[in-house]
């Protein structure tokens, strides 16, 4: 059972519960959830803090608060059909666990929450020094489940477990990664080997991404594309052969073959479906990071909505080559990393209702048959894919300096430059407001 926390909420949550004062501080996370593979993900949608006057002074250790505060928080949870996780801190604990008192009060409190909001998980979590532990009562269950990790989203994803960052017993890096680990360290390599990356779209950009993920040694690639090999793909799809064209090999199978030939320790799950189809959604939810290599804004909107809903960082790449008259040409590309709780493609104005309407010519989406053929050149696809892989490396291993800035990486293929463009994100983005950590919907029978 894992917990994911968007960046903005994670920052304020840690600030509150690590506050010093005459008593312990607590925070109430309002949560949704989903099933990802065989794992429950608990997704923090909002946080409620207590005002100083809502705490009650006692002679006992810990935090005590007024009943009226509990009612206020329960009402908010009920209104949003959300579960409640109670957070507090044991600041100096490298290995952390709930105390016997914590467990006792959780065992009393959680069934009360469950009785009022039965369709969502409720729990009690303790945060230590880069460690986290807790118990959760899942919908429809009487027994409590242990929390295995808390993921703080940011430009680097940080997973805090009950044992914190204590050194693991076998930090030996396999020979294949020995020089790579000189940059990302043995812990970075270990993190990569446990990371599941979904790649949506397996043409020029996506095939380069799969190739590099295989070399990097990620744990699993979830390769999503419904298309078969066609002759006009062969100039840019890495790994595609003449035989694949003759045999109309699905692109996902081309990728599986390529990944296996590079690194048989990397699993590749072929998903020959559109990203909006049920099977693809189910697989995408298992991903730690999604790399989007699609050619339409509508597909991007679908991926972005899913990534926000399930709190998955999304790296999008896109290329537009426009040959002009008299030999002029414009070659532009973007690499955009959307970190849930920081900014999405809508916040960054890369997506808008107007742009989506323009893409379909103002008609409903049901009439939209995809974008027209555009110029594509493998070298430019590869450059954007490589930049996206650097974003992934930062997200997983944190090899570079951390940054909280919102920016888009702009590629100009004519001047062959890649620039970081700072973006002032949209305040109160309507898509983040509704989709962020929404999880699976709770249906109420009429």
């Amino acid at each position, binding site marked *: 059972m894992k917990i994911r926390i968007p960046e903005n909420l994670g920052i304020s949550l840690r600030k509150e519960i690590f506050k010093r004062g005459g008593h312990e501080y607590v925070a109430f996370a309002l949560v949704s959830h989903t099933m990802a593979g065989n794992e429950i993900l608990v997704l923090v949608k909002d946080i409620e803090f207590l005002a100083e006057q809502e705490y009650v002074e006692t002679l006992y250790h810990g935090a005590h608060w007024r009943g009226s505060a509990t009612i206020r928080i329960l009402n908010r949870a009920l209104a949003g059909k959300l579960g409640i996780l109670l957070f507090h801190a044991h600041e100096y604990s490298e290995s952390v666990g709930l105390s016997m008192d914590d467990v006792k009060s959780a065992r009393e409190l959680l069934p009360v929450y469950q009785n009022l909001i039965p369709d969502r998980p409720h729990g009690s979590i303790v945060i230590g020094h880069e460690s986290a532990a807790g118990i959760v009562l899942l919908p429809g269950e009487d027994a409590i489940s242990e929390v295995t990790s808390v993921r703080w989203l940011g430009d680097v994803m940080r997973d805090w477990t009950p044992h914190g960052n204590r050194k693991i017993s076998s930090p030996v890096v396999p020979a294949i990664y020995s020089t790579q680990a000189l940059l990302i360290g043995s812990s970075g390599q270990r993190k990569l080997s446990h990371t599941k990356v979904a790649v949506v779209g397996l043409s020029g950009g996506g095939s380069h991404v799969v190739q590099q993920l295989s070399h990097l040694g990620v744990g699993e690639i979830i390769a999503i594309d419904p298309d078969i090999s066609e002759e006009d793909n062969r100039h840019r799809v890495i790994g595609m052969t003449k035989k694949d064209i003759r045999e109309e090999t699905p692109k996902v199978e081309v990728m599986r073959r390529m990944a296996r030939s590079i690194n048989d320790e990397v699993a590749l799950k072929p998903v020959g479906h*559109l990203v909006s189809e049920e099977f693809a959604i189910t697989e995408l*939810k298992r991903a730690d990071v999604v790399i989007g290599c699609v050619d339409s804004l509508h597909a991007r909107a679908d991926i972005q909505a899913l990534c926000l809903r399930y709190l998955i960082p999304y790296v999008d790449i896109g290329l537009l080559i426009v040959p002009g008259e008299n030999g002029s040409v414009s070659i532009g590309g973007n690499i955009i990393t959307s970190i849930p709780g920081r900014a999405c493609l809508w916040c960054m104005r890369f997506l808008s209702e107007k742009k989506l309407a323009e893409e379909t010519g103002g008609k409903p989406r049901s009439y939209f048959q995809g974008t027209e053929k555009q110029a594509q050149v493998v070298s430019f696809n590869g450059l954007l894919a490589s930049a996206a892989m650097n974003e992934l490396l930062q997200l997983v291993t944190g090899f570079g300096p951390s940054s909280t800035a919102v920016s888009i990486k702009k590629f100009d293929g004519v001047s062959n430059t890649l620039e970081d463009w700072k973006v002032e994100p949209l305040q109160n983005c309507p898509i983040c407001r509704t989709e962020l950590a929404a999880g699976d919907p709770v249906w109420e029978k*009429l």
Partner: protein
Amino acid sequence: MPTHGYELDDLKEQYKTVSVSENGSNTYVLVEKAGLPPGCHPKETPVLLVLNSGQPRPEIYVKPGIKILNGQDPRSTSIINIQGQSWMQFSYNLEFDRNKHSLVQFIAGSLRRFSKN
């Protein structure tokens, strides 16, 4: 839960299993089984309505995978994700006045579109 001026009781009477959820300014209505025109496969489909006061009529979606009378996929459809689930948007031609027509009429009229390509 806001119903945006729509009457939901007759939906329950007609379709028996109807559920609702809410997100932002939208109310989502899930009809577990609504009949498709004769010759369609399957004969019934789940239907999702999205209600919003700002829209002149509800949005309607069905589950992907419907084959029409000639065994083919219906034209002018698109598979999209709504609330993390896969739904099929489809073209239809229906006059709808929310002051005159019910949601039961809206669903029946929209699904009639699957009687042809």
